[in-house]
């Protein structure tokens, strides 16, 4: 069993997380999240792989031929669906946040501000935010 897939998976997750931690742009951040997810693809495929086996389709092979683990492939397939959903949802949220906040920078688009004060940087005059007394 080669350690390479596991090392690659850990490395991918690590750099993805580093990217998220340091990102100043939400679209870049969504890409980094995708890299973290690729780590799970590599890990799962690495776990299910067997050297010298066929794909788990027995149409033109006799039953009993060694095949790679089909369960792992099913997991990866589900994972890809989840990934597509998340990316789409995050990009929609990002577009909407850009429309309202005028920025893609997480530093500017914070959920709340101290004392309910409107933020200085962004053009946010029309969003109904009110200075607390």
């Amino acid at each position, binding site marked *: 069993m080669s350690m390479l897939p596991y090392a690659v998976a850990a490395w991918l997750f690590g750099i993805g997380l580093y990217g*998220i931690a340091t990102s100043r742009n939400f679209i870049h951040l969504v890409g980094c999240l995708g890299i973290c997810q690729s780590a799970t693809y590599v890990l799962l495929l690495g776990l299910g792989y067997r050297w010298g086996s066929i794909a788990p389709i027995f149409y033109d092979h006799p039953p009993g031929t060694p095949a790679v683990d089909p369960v792992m492939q099913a*997991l990866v397939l*589900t994972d890809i669906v989840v990934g597509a959903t998340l990316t789409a*949802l995050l990009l929609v949220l990002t577009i909407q946040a850009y429309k309202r906040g005028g920025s893609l920078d997480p530093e500017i688009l914070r*959920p*709340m501000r101290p004392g309910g004060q409107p933020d200085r940087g962004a053009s946010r005059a029309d969003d109904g935010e009110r200075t607390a007394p």
Partner: protein
Amino acid sequence: MTASAAALLPLPVAIPLVVCAAMLATAHLLPGRLPDILATLAALAVAVLCAVIARHAAEHPLVYWFGGWEPHDGVHLGIGFSVDEASGWVAAFIGLLYAVTFVFAWGFFGRTHGHFHILMLLFLAAMVGFCFTRDMFNLFVWFEVMSVAAFALTAYHLEESALSGAINFTVINSLAGFLMLGGIGLIYARTGTLDFEGIAAAVARSGRDPVVAGAFCLVAAALMIKGAIVPFQFWLADAHAVAPSPVSVIFSGSMVSLGLFGLAKLSAVVFGGSDQLRHALPLLLTALGGGTALLGGWMALLQRHLKRMLAFSTISHAGIMLTGIGALSADGTGGMLVYLVGHGLVKGALFMVAGILLATRASIDEIALRGLGRGIGPAGIAMALAGLLLCGLPIGVLDQGTRLVQGALAQQGRGMALAAGAIGAALTGAAVLRAAGRIFLGLGPDPGDEAGAPSADEREKANRPLWLMLAPCCVLLALDVALPADLIEHAVPRAASAFLHRPAVAALAEGPAWLPWTSLTAALAGAGYGLFRRRLPALVVRPVSVTQSAPTRALEVLHSGLIGDYAAWLAVGVAVIAVVLGLA
């Protein structure tokens, strides 16, 4: 009889999914309030069915294999649901909470083609599936469905705060999903099965195995992210504070505690056979839980945005539940399950009061709302009662859960966790009582450190009569107070033992009776200090405000709202869990 009851198992998941799909297809045709009625009825049906299932599961767990794919010779190919009594009752509670929330949100979302109800029903189906499943991968699927529905519901208002809160929530919980999937892959690679029982048998055989520990580390981290345990708690304050108030009811009342429910199930049932984990878990879980209880309570006390304050209070109570799991005993787990229901009822009622204030007084800021609650006295009484229950007023379900958790911790000599839980509960109670006093009695003209806390103004539609919003809130509180104590006392030992797959115990230990009173007194003192600071002698006020301000600012800086910081803390948290498990 049992066979026919087992055939009911898919229904509580199927009904909301079918209603949700039918509503999605016909949303543009449905007149007026029909989506509200359909959704409420579907949630009620789920609650009733789950209660029936739970009653039948009292003897022994019910099992249902989809498509009849039963295991043969120890090989599990199919996917199954397996419901013990405790899981059934938790699912019934969730169904009920949804039904009450649908009533609270009656007409709230106006002409939205029922999208709110569709997402909520999907969310409900995922939660019930999460409670019922006995398959690791199925658990992951429900976890993700739950997350996706929650992400969309958080951003429902499409306002700036809501959007950035939802993005933080989505990114952190997606990372949780990836961690969980990695853990599931590892455990499958080691044991060759995804079925809970199959994995449990293989784990018990395997002895000390780094792959099993690694898999548990990843899965536990994912569930703790969902359960908002320090240092994974950051997303919760952002998401719960900006979500529409009916959604926050569900988030705080059931989603967060469901993460911990999953952790309790997995650590007891699936990974319970590993000696390494059994040694490491009590310390790890009680330490993290105690820390979470303290941090959440302290932060709650420093907030001025009501929903954000309640969110931190949820974090604190999640910590207390985690200490219950950490006892790894029938007492602790039974207490945690009772606590889950009690906390859901009380916290749901509190978020409804926040929603009432948003709708009728058009603000959510404690300081801006001072004295404005005078016209809606019943809401004030509900809020004060809920605050007292949170910090340990010794009546009702929440108190029963608290005493069981405290009993389990006292029995195992975990004084630190016990004290942390009591202090955390007192702090959150103090925060709620202070807000109630300020808003409904007009007390506390002079805000302390909370004046500098983050806040954002928002509004919710004032298109509902007050009684319609107040009734569900009162129903939740009445349920918490009035559920017969001896019924729970009778059922919990049996249900908790079955949940843990252990032989039944006769009775559970309870904590010292004076402890809830101490929490209650401390909470009243804390609330009194916040409200009457101006009238107290400087000798008292100065030392308190000096010791309060510096840690306050440090903690506020940590809760920065920046997704990058949260990701870094997530890495730290996973590393801490890995180190503790590795050293055991």
